[in-house]
């Protein structure tokens, strides 16, 4: 905006971006409120899956119990620890950027993303094991084998829930990567770090959903 150039000539990298329709403090509040609302929509999105899972768990209790036994709870548990630890790293990233320690924040963010990678790799191993046993919906073996339909229902839901969650992990990693690159380029300072904070908020949600998925699928089943 041409008029802002002259009026805000003292703007430098690391300051909040100048928008024409609100001051920077309001923009910070608005971004956080917006992200919290978005998190609410994500919870409702998964809420449908949780409702479906609980309903069929109640309908087909014995079969779900049996099917759940075939999941590797050690790997699931390891992934839970990985994600919990990544959330700690995300908190530290926000804390560092708030204190103006950009370099540290960058490292924390990259470590968070690294945890995301580890999570996905472990998940891929688990998927592969199920795939090689023919327990993937849509496979001929899955459809033709003499599995009970209730047994298949468990794996249908398992794959829908974990795949949607994995998709959110990837989205969260992308968001954090974008924030990390901007941190490294010096866009953020103790005066302005909104994207890091809302990115970390999103990451905590990804973590939180897994915290519910793990016991429901691996332990309670």
């Amino acid at each position, binding site marked *: 905006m041409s008029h802002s150039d002259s009026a805000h000539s003292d703007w430098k990298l690391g300051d909040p971006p100048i928008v024409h329709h609100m001051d920077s403090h309001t923009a910070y*509040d608005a971004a956080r409120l917006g992200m919290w609302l978005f998190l609410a929509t994500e919870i409702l999105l998964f809420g449908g*899956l949780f409702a479906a899972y609980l309903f069929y768990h109640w309908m087909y209790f014995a079969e779900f119990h049996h099917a759940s036994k075939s999941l590797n709870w050690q790997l699931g548990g390891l992934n839970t620890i990985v994600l919990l630890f990544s959330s700690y790293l995300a908190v530290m990233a926000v804390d560092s950027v708030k204190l103006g320690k950009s370099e540290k924040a960058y490292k924390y963010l990259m470590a968070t993303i690294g945890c995301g990678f580890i999570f996905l790799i472990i998940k891929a191993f688990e998927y592969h094991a199920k795939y090689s046993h023919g327990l993937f919906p849509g496979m001929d073996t899955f459809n033709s084998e003499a599995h009970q339909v209730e047994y298949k229902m468990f794996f249908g839901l398992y794959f*829908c829930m974990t795949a949607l969650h994995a998709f959110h992990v990837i989205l969260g990693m992308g968001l954090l990567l974008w924030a990390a690159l901007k941190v490294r380029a010096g866009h953020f300072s103790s005066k302005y770090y909104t994207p890091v904070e809302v990115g970390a908020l999103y990451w905590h949600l990804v973590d939180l959903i897994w915290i519910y998925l793990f016991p429901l699928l691996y332990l309670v089943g």
Partner: protein
Amino acid sequence: MSGQHNSGQGEASTGEPKNYLNWDTSIWGWLTTVDHKRIALMYLFSILIFFFVGGLAALIMRTELMHAGGQFLTPQQYNVMFTLHGALMIFLFVVPGIPATMGNFLLPLMIGAKDVAFPKLNLISYYIYVAGALIACFALMNPLDQWADTGWTFYAPYSIESGGSVVLMTFAAFVLGFSSILTGLNFVVTIHKLRAPGMTWDRLPVFVWATYATAVIQTLATPVVGITLLLLIMERLFGVGVFDPKLGGDPVLYEHFFWFYSHPVVYIMVLPAFGVVGEIIPVFSRKPIFGYKAVVYASIAIAAVGFLVWAHHMFVAGISDYSAIYFSVITFGVAIPTAVKVFNWVSTMYKGSIRFTTPMLYAMGFVFLFMIAGTTGIYLAVLAVDVYYHDTYFVVAHFHYTIQGGAVIGLMAALYFWFPKMTGKMYNDTVGKIAWVFVFVGFNLTFLPQFKLGMMGMPRRYFDYLPEFESLHTVSTYGAFLNAFGYTFALVNLLYAWIFSKRKASENPWESLSLEWKTPSPPPHDNFTEPVIVTEWTYGYGTPVEGGKH
């Protein structure tokens, strides 16, 4: 519009003051705009295209139904036609409807803000809408596969078996839902964070309150239908049997999920129209709105209770008697806040000095039609009566009284009321009134006979019927053509005025006290020429001190 490609600010060289329309007239300037007013206009033109196409599908159906026996459609083509009509009208016209057009335009103006909280997100949600609309059109008129024929509800298990377009259509609805979520989220944040100094919650115009309630529903209900449609797609692609009885799934679960969103969505459609009427009636009655707080709380109550009544669509779907009783009783509860609103509008008019302008006629028409809609809704909430009326034309008529008589008439009222602000031009009021007569008479002629048809037992979605239904069907078809003519006439009147009218609108042609009328028509790019500070309630009409403190 002046043809100059001037993206600079301030006064134009021609001396004409710069407003949001002539600020940057290049095509690129429009397509990449983040100005909420321009995005509102882009939404408006987009949704009106689908209103037109969906209306054509309705006329084709009505022509087919004019006489008993097959006329010119096959039964399958008829199924395609009501799917096309329903899906276009619901997902592409009425759901974005008032919020994305009038809400986008008015919300920042009414609260004294320069834009919505996230202007870029606003533009993104428009393009997501366009993408969803293109996918939907492809699915509904698929050149490669059988056209979608499930009806707009995609009920399982039929939607699992029907042609391939269903996957695309559900995906389109998912994408459109995403657009709706982002718009709702944007509005909630805008209302919380960007109110001008002095614009306290109890001074907010009722339209803003209604939009707020709507935005909350958009944000919280839409994700649930999103996951439902995703599960349906997974079902089609991978055989995950959540809704398929053959695979151990439960189609009734689909209905629960679907209506958990799709009942609140009727409040997304109609709450903004409540807000529009709440703005228009005080202005043309020259009286403060009666029971402001009651109107506001009623909006919130409708939004809240709307989440708790979804299974009243499923009384005959095999739900338990106890849950049916619960859903029936709570549904009666919706009548209370709705009736509160009607009482408030009528009391606002009582002993007012009423001016019968076109927007006022639409607003009064709305109150009348919505009373019929609400009352017939009570019939359907009665468990014993619903067993008989379910899936008959009674439901079709009730639904169209709420959605066309509510949301569409509300949109027409809003267009006629805020047209001078949006375009800076005045339209021909007499022509507007004549068109209103066609709309009003045509609408009632179409749907009043359908109540009777439903009572006689005419089932909905049937391509043919018994001879005793013929006379009422014929009347209904005549009404539909009259109705369609009325809408075309009314919209052409506005379009004509925008392009050709020489009559410029003043800043405040209706003498309203609301903020959007305290800025030039059309408003400048930044909405207001000077900083806004609110010191008064919005509805101080005709009180001893004009605009006295609330």
